[in-house]
C-alpha cells in the first residue's frame, strides 16, 4: 500500500472485502477544512440516498445547492452529463424517489460540483449499468473535473475498462477487521422438499395507475433447473414482475400457472418465490444473525436447525452468529440477507443484485451455489448490472422492453 496519493484524476482502489479500503478512504478526511468554499474531502458510501442533502424536495434545488462556487467549465460538463442521463425529466422530482442508479449519479455529480480536493466513491458505482458508467468515467478521466482527485474503491473494477490508461492503483491486501469472517464455501448438497415447479405467465398485465402499463401481456415460460437473467432499463418493470411472482402485488389481468395449474400468488405471498432485495437493510428483522437465517414457514424444528447450520457455515457466518446483523458492515448484511432468502427453501428465487459490494471470491462461491441449486431442481432469476457475474453464471436471458419480455440467448 503506497502512502503517496497518486496525482491523477481517477485512482482505482482494489482489494478484497475487509482488506481496509474503506478505512483508508475515511482516514483521508482531514480535521480542518481551511477553505470554506472548497471541501477537502467528500466521501460517498454504499447507499446513495444517505448522501443526498435531504434539505430540498426537488432535484433542481439539489443541483443549485451544490453549484454555489462551481466554475463555468465544470457546470458545462455537468450539464452535458445531465442530458446524457436524461435528468431534465427528473428536475422537479423528489430526489428520494429516484432509482438507485439515478441517485448515484445525482450524488456523484453534486459532489463533483463542489470541486473538493478529493472525492471517494466507495462501491456506489456498482449500482450503475455499463451505459451510465462510461460517460461519467470519460468525463472524469478527460479532466472535466480538474480540481478533484477521484478515488474509486470498487469490486467490479475489472469490468470498468479503466485499464486502458496506465494508472497506478492502490491495492489492499491485508485482512484486518473487528470481526472475523470466514470465507464462504460450498458445502454438501442441501436437502430440499420444494422444487421443480414450472411457472407460466399468460398475458400478464400490470399498471400502477390508469393508463401507464408497466407490463403488457407478458407471456413467458419459466422452467425449473434453469437460471434466468432478467434485464431491462430502469423502470422497465423488473421489480414489478418480481413482486407479482412473489405475491406482493395483485395481477390486473392475465394468469400465473404453476405446473399448468392456475396459481394465485397474491393469496400466498412469499410462498412460491424467495425474493432477495437489493438493499438488505430493508429485509433484516431479527436481532441475531442465526435467527435471521432461520427459515420462516412451517417446518419441523430439526429441519430448521439443519438448514440453518448449513447456510451459516456456507456463508462464513459462524463467528458472528450471535451478533446483531445491523452492527455488521454492509457486505455482511447483504450476505446474511441472501443466506436468509436461500435458506427459505422456495422452489424459485429472485435475487436482486446479489453481488453488490461483494468481492470475487464471494461471487465465485455464489455462482457455484446457484448452479448447485438449479441442478437440484430450483429455478433462479437474477437481476444484475455486473456483466462479469451474468456472463460467468450461465443462464437464459429475459429482457423487459416496453412491457414485454423477450427471450434472448446471448
Amino acid at each position, binding site marked *: 500500500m503506497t502512502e503517496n496519493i497518486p496525482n491523477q484524476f481517477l485512482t482505482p482502489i482494489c482489494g478484497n472485502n475487509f482488506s481496509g479500503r474503506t478505512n483508508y478512504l475515511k482516514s483521508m478526511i482531514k*480535521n480542518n477544512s481551511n477553505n470554506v468554499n472548497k471541501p477537502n474531502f467528500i466521501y460517498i458510501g454504499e447507499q446513495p440516498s444517505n448522501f443526498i442533502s*435531504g434539505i430540498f424536495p426537488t432535484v433542481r434545488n439539489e443541483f443549485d445547492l451544490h453549484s454555489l462556487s462551481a466554475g463555468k467549465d465544470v457546470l458545462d460538463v455537468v450539464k452535458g452529463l445531465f442530458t446524457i442521463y436524461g435528468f431534465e425529466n427528473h428536475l422537479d422530482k423528489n430526489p428520494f424517489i429516484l432509482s438507485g442508479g439515478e441517485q448515484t449519479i445525482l450524488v456523484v455529480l453534486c459532489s463533483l460540483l463542489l470541486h473538493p480536493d478529493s472525492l471517494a466513491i466507495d462501491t456506489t458505482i456498482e449500482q450503475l449499468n455499463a451505459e451510465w458508467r462510461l460517460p461519467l468515467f470519460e468525463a472524469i478521466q478527460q479532466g472535466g473535473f480538474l480540481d478533484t482527485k477521484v478515488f474509486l474503491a470498487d469490486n467490479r473494477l475489472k469490468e470498468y475498462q479503466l485499464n486502458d490508461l496506465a494508472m497506478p492503483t492502490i491495492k489492499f491486501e491485508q485482512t484486518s477487521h473487528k470481526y472475523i469472517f470466514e470465507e464462504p464455501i460450498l458445502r454438501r448438497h442441501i436437502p430440499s422438499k420444494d422444487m421443480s415447479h414450472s411457472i407460466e405467465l399468460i398475458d400478464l398485465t400490470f399498471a400502477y395507475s390508469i393508463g401507464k402499463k408497466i407490463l403488457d401481456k407478458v407471456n413467458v415460460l419459466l422452467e425449473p433447473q434453469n437460471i434466468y437473467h432478467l434485464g431491462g432499463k430502469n423502470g422497465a418493470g423488473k421489480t414489478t414482475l418480481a413482486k407479482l411472482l412473489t405475491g406482493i402485488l395483485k395481477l390486473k389481468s392475465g394468469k400465473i400457472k404453476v405446473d399448468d395449474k392456475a396459481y394465485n400468488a397474491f393469496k400466498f405471498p412469499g410462498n412460491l418465490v424467495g425474493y432477495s432485495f437489493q438493499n438488505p437493510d430493508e429485509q433484516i428483522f431479527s*436481532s441475531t444473525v442465526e435467527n435471521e437465517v432461520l427459515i420462516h414457514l412451517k417446518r419441523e424444528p430439526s429441519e430448521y436447525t439443519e438448514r440453518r447450520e448449513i447456510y451459516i457455515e456456507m456463508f462464513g457466518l459462524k463467528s458472528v452468529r450471535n*451478533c*446483531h446483523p*445491523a*452492527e455488521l458492515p454492509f457486505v455482511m448484511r447483504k450476505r446474511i440477507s441472501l443466506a436468509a432468502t436461500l435458506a427459505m427453501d422456495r422452489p424459485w428465487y429472485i435475487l436482486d443484485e446479489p453481488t453488490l459490494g461483494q468481492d470475487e471470491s464471494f461471487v465465485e462461491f455464489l455462482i457455484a451455489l446457484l448452479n448447485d441449486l438449479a441442478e437440484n431442481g430450483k429455478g433462479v432469476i437474477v437481476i444484475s448490472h455486473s456483466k462479469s457475474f451474468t456472463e460467468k453464471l450461465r443462464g437464459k436471458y429475459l429482457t423487459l422492453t416496453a412491457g414485454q419480455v423477450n427471450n434472448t440467448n446471448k
Partner: protein
Amino acid sequence: MSMDKNSQQGRMLALTFIPLAVALNFGIGAIVKALSLPLYVDSIGTILATLLLGWRMGTIVGVLGFVITSVFINPFAIYFVTTQLAIALFVHIVGRRGGFKSVFKTIVSGVVLGIIAAIVSAPVIILVFQGATGNGAALLTSFFTKMSNQIINSVFLSGFSIEPIDKSLQCLLAFFILKGIPKNLLENFRSGSLKENNMID
C-alpha cells in the same frame, strides 16, 4: 480541538436526525389514522428523539412533526403542540431516572405520561373544540357528560381513559425499538438518557 469536533459532530447528527424523527411521528400517525383505531400513536418520534438527544430536540421533533402533520394529514394536530412539549419534558426527566429500563418501568412511565398528556391537552380540547373533537374521545366525553352534566370534568375523564393506554403503548414501542438496535448505532447519541436506561454503555 477534539471537543469542538465532537460537539460539532453531535450538532450535525441532531440536525440530520430531527427531520427523520419528524417523519416517524408523521408517518406512523398517518397509518394509525388510516386504520381508524381509537388511538393516536403520533409521538413515537418525539419519545425516541428525547431519549436519544434530550428534551430540546424532542420538543423540536414534536412541534415540527405536528406542524407537518397539519399540513399534510390532520389539520387539527397543530392545536396540540403544547402536548408535545410536555411529552418531551416528561420523557427526558423520567428517562434520566431510568424510567425506560425495563418493560414494567416503561409501562408505568407511559401511564403517567398519559395522565400528564391528558391534563395538558384538556384545555385545548375545551377552549378550541368545546369538548367535541370528532373522535373516540368525544364519544367518551359525551358518555361522561351524561353522567355528570359537566363538560370540563368529562373532558378530563375521557382523556384519563384514553391517553394512558395510548402513551404506554407508544413508550413500549419506543422501548422495543431501542432494545432492537445494536449498541454501536446508538453510540453517538450521548445527550439523551440512553445510558441511564442501559441502552448504551
